[in-house]
C-alpha cells in the first residue's frame, strides 16, 4: 500500500488569551495514515474535533505537537513547522480541501472561481474551462449562472460551486469537511461519484460525513475521535471554532 499521508502523535490546543488564557486541548495523540485509493472517515459526535483535525492537516490551524507527513512530489514532507511557502506548494499540488462553505471572492465569475486551482497548476485556459464547465453541469449549476459571481447564489448553489472547485484538479490527498451536507439526493449522488472517482484515481481521502448513506458509500475505514475522557471544554472549543468560520 502506498501511504500518502501519515500522522503521528498529533495534538492541537487553543489558548484563548482574550479569555484569561484558557487552554483547550482539542486533539491529543492522534495516530493514523491513509493510503492512495482509501477513504478514512472521521467518527465522533459534534465537537469531537473532526473539523479541527482537517483544518490542522491543511495547515489552517497550527498543531501543538506531533507530525504530519505527506507524499509531496515523490518525497515525504513534514508539514508541522514547514515554511509557509512549502505549505502553499503542498496546497497547490498535493493537498485538496473541500468544505461546505465557499469563501466568496468578490466580482469573480463562477466558472473562473472553479478553474482557479487548475490555472494555479499551469493548465491551459481552454482545458481548465472544459473541465470546469463539465463539473458545473454535473453538479446541476444552471449554465446561465456560470458567468456570474457566486456571491449572490443560494447556499446550496454556493456549496456545489465550492465542490466543483475542490474536484477541479486531481489531488493525491483530499480533505472533505461534510461535502454532502444539506444536498438533495441527486446532487449528493454526484458528489459521491466524484469522491469515488478520485479514489479510483489514487487519492487518499479523509472526510467527515454526517449522513450514514454517504458514509457507507465511500468509507473504507474510520477513525474514532471520541475522546477517552469526554472533555466538555474541548467540545465547547470546537463548536466555537466552527461557527466562527461561517
Amino acid at each position, binding site marked *: 500500500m502506498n501511504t500518502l499521508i501519515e500522522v503521528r502523535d498529533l495534538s492541537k490546543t*487553543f*489558548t*484563548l*488569551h*482574550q479569555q484569561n488564557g484558557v487552554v483547550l486541548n482539542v486533539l491529543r495523540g492522534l495516530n493514523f495514515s491513509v493510503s492512495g485509493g482509501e477513504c478514512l472517515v472521521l467518527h465522533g459526535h459534534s465537537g469531537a474535533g473532526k473539523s479541527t483535525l482537517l*483544518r490542522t492537516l491543511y*495547515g*489552517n*490551524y*497550527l498543531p501543538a505537537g506531533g507530525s504530519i507527513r505527506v507524499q509531496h512530489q515523490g518525497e515525504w514532507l513534514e508539514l508541522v513547522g514547514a515554511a*509557509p*511557502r512549502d*505549505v*502553499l506548494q503542498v496546497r497547490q499540488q498535493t493537498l485538496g480541501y473541500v468544505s461546505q462553505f465557499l469563501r466568496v*471572492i*468578490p*466580482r*469573480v465569475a463562477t466558472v473562473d472561481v472553479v478553474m482557479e486551482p487548475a490555472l*494555479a497548476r499551469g493548465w491551459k485556459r481552454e482545458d481548465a474551462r472544459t473541465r470546469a464547465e463539465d463539473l458545473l453541469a454535473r453538479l446541476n449549476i444552471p449554465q446561465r449562472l456560470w458567468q456570474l459571481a457566486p456571491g449572490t447564489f443560494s447556499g446550496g448553489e454556493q456549496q456545489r460551486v465550492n465542490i466543483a472547485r475542490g474536484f477541479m484538479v486531481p489531488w493525491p490527498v483530499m480533505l472533505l469537511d461534510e461535502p454532502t451536507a444539506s444536498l438533495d439526493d441527486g446532487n449528493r449522488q454526484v458528489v459521491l461519484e466524484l469522491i469515488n472517482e478520485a479514489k479510483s484515481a489514487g487519492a487518499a481521502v479523509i472526510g467527515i460525513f454526517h449522513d450514514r448513506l454517504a458514509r457507507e458509500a465511500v468509507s473504507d475505514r474510520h477513525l474514532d475521535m471520541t475522546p477517552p475522557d469526554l472533555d466538555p471544554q474541548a467540545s465547547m472549543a470546537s463548536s466555537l471554532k466552527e461557527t*466562527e*468560520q461561517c
Partner: protein
Amino acid sequence: MNAAQQIDRDAVSDRTQPLLKVRGLTKLYGPEKGCQDVSFELYPGEVLGIVGESGSGKSTLLSLLSGRCPPDSGVIDYRLADTHKSAGQWLDLYSASEAERRTLLRTEWGFVEQNPRDGLRMAVSAGANIGERLMAQGVRNYQALRAAGLDWLNQVEIDPARIDDLPRTFSGGMQQRLQIARNLVSGPRLVFMDEPTGGLDVSVQARLLDLMRGLVRELDLAVVIVTHDLAVARLLADRLMVMRRSHVVETGLTDQILDDPQHPYSQLLVSSVLQP
C-alpha cells in the same frame, strides 16, 4: 498579456532562491516607535502582508525595505535580475549607491502609495504617467510609449480612450489603478504597497483587489503589502507578519494567522474585526 507571460516563465527558473533577504532590521524613533529586529526572506511570486495597528511600525518597515530610509542597523539583500549587468548578484541595499537604489526603484521595483496623488504626476496625462518609467529606461519611440500606455490602461480596466486625460479627472479607484499601471509597466519583480485600498470606498476596493490578485499571479510579482484591513490581507497575502509596538509578534500562513492566531495581540486583532 504576452509580455506578462514571458516574465512569468523567466521567473520560474529562479523561484527556488529568495528575492529579498532581511536580517535584523531596526529603525527606532523612540522606545518602541519604529521597528526592530525584523528578519525574513521573500521569494519570487510571494505576497507578504504586514498587519498591525496604527503606529506599530508597519510603514517604517516599508520605507526601510523600499530603500527610502536607511535603518539604524540590519541588512537588506536583494537578488538582482538575470538581465541586469551583474546577473544574479546580491545587492546590499544600503551599501549600494543612491543611483543604484533609484534605478532599482524605477525598474525592478514598484511602490504603490496609499494616496495616488503621491504616486502619480497629477499635472501630466495618464499616458505620460504610464510611459515615464519606460522613458527613464531610455525608450525614445513615441509610438512604443503610446502602445504601452494603451495596453496598460486596458490591463487595469481603464478606458484606453482616456489616455490623454489628466489623472485629476479620474475617480479615486481609477487613479489607484493608474498608479498600479505606472508601476507595473517596467515589469518589476518586487512591488511595495502601502494600504493600496485605504482611501477607497468599499465597492471600489473589491474591484481593485480582484485586479491586483490577477496581476500578482499573472506577472508572478513578489509583493510586500502594508494594510490594517485583514480582509485585504486574506485576499492578497500568502503569509502575514503581525506587528505591534515595533516588534514582529507573529508570522505565518495568512489563513493560519487569521483563523488560528497564537499571540495574544494577534488574537485581539483578529477578534476585533467587525463582521458585516
